[in-house]
């Protein structure tokens, strides 16, 4: 499901089954030197979030990404997000990011190496994302099976 008006009616009715929020964390780089790399990373993470939503449609809600610039306190952001979600029907929250600064912060951070998809033809792109999703299935299943 996506965080849209139409899907939200369904997930509110099925909170017993739809219990996981996916939130992409996207660092925004805007200097001449960093823009290309940053945009390519963002592209990958957002595509991966889409692919995960497709695989786990009946259990997750993919939220709009959270974008930030450098200098914001990640610890504080995480506290804010978590306390907001503590009041929600979601049991699990999964932050998806390619930014390694989040890496060690918390068990809910799903860091993944990003793959530049830019110049790939759609078929190849789909294949790579599918492989990545398949690798993430056990990691996510593990999260579901452990109380959080």
């Amino acid at each position, binding site marked *: 499901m996506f965080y849209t008006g139409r899907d939200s009616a369904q997930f509110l009715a*099925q909170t017993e*089954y*739809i219990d996981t929020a996916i939130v992409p964390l996207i660092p925004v780089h805007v200097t001449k030197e960093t823009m290309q790399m940053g945009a390519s990373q963002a592209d990958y993470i957002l595509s991966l979030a889409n692919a995960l939503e*497709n*695989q*786990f*449609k*009946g*259990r997750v809600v993919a939220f709009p990404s959270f974008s930030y610039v450098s200098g914001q306190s990640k610890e504080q952001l995480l506290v804010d997000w978590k306390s907001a979600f503590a009041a929600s029907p979601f049991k699990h929250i999964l932050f998806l990011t390619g930014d390694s600064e989040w890496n060690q912060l918390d068990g809910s951070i799903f860091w993944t190496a990003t793959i530049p998809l830019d110049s790939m033809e*759609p*078929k190849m792109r*789909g294949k790579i994302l599918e492989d990545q999703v398949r690798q993430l*299935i056990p990691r*996510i*299943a593990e999260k579901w099976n452990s109380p959080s």
Partner: protein
Amino acid sequence: MSNNKVTRRQFLSYTLTGVGGFMAAGMLMPMVRFAIDPVLQKKDGGDFVTTDVAVADITEEPTRVDFTFEQVDAWYTSEVTNTAWVYKSGDSIVALSPICKHLGCTVNWAGDAEYPDQFFCPCHEGRYEKNGKNVPGTPPLGPLDVFEVRESADGLLEIGMAVPNNLV
């Protein structure tokens, strides 16, 4: 100058309006066509998509087959990729939809090591037998849909519409 004669000024303005009208129509027609065309367009050949899988290569082990088609939403054309689980059963080819009948996750063949001969849905541990029949006691309440299939003239698998499961 009498009233029912066309003056030079009137003649010019009529002519120009006429020409302008033609020009406007010339510009508008394609736009109108674009707007209406997707609605008028008929799909051909019953919507079968040719895959790159040869029918002769299909085995009894369910295998993922991706197929891509163009979806036209009014002005916007996008490519949609769908997946099917394809296998051979006797003389016929079966293509099952991977969309879980519970809440729509994607199911995988042998996705759970404990049930190597079933489709598994990782979301709420739904299971289906090889023919798509839902295993009672798991969340799904109906069998997986099947896709219509046929063989192209050069032996490739063609996949059509998803229809309710007729194998269980």
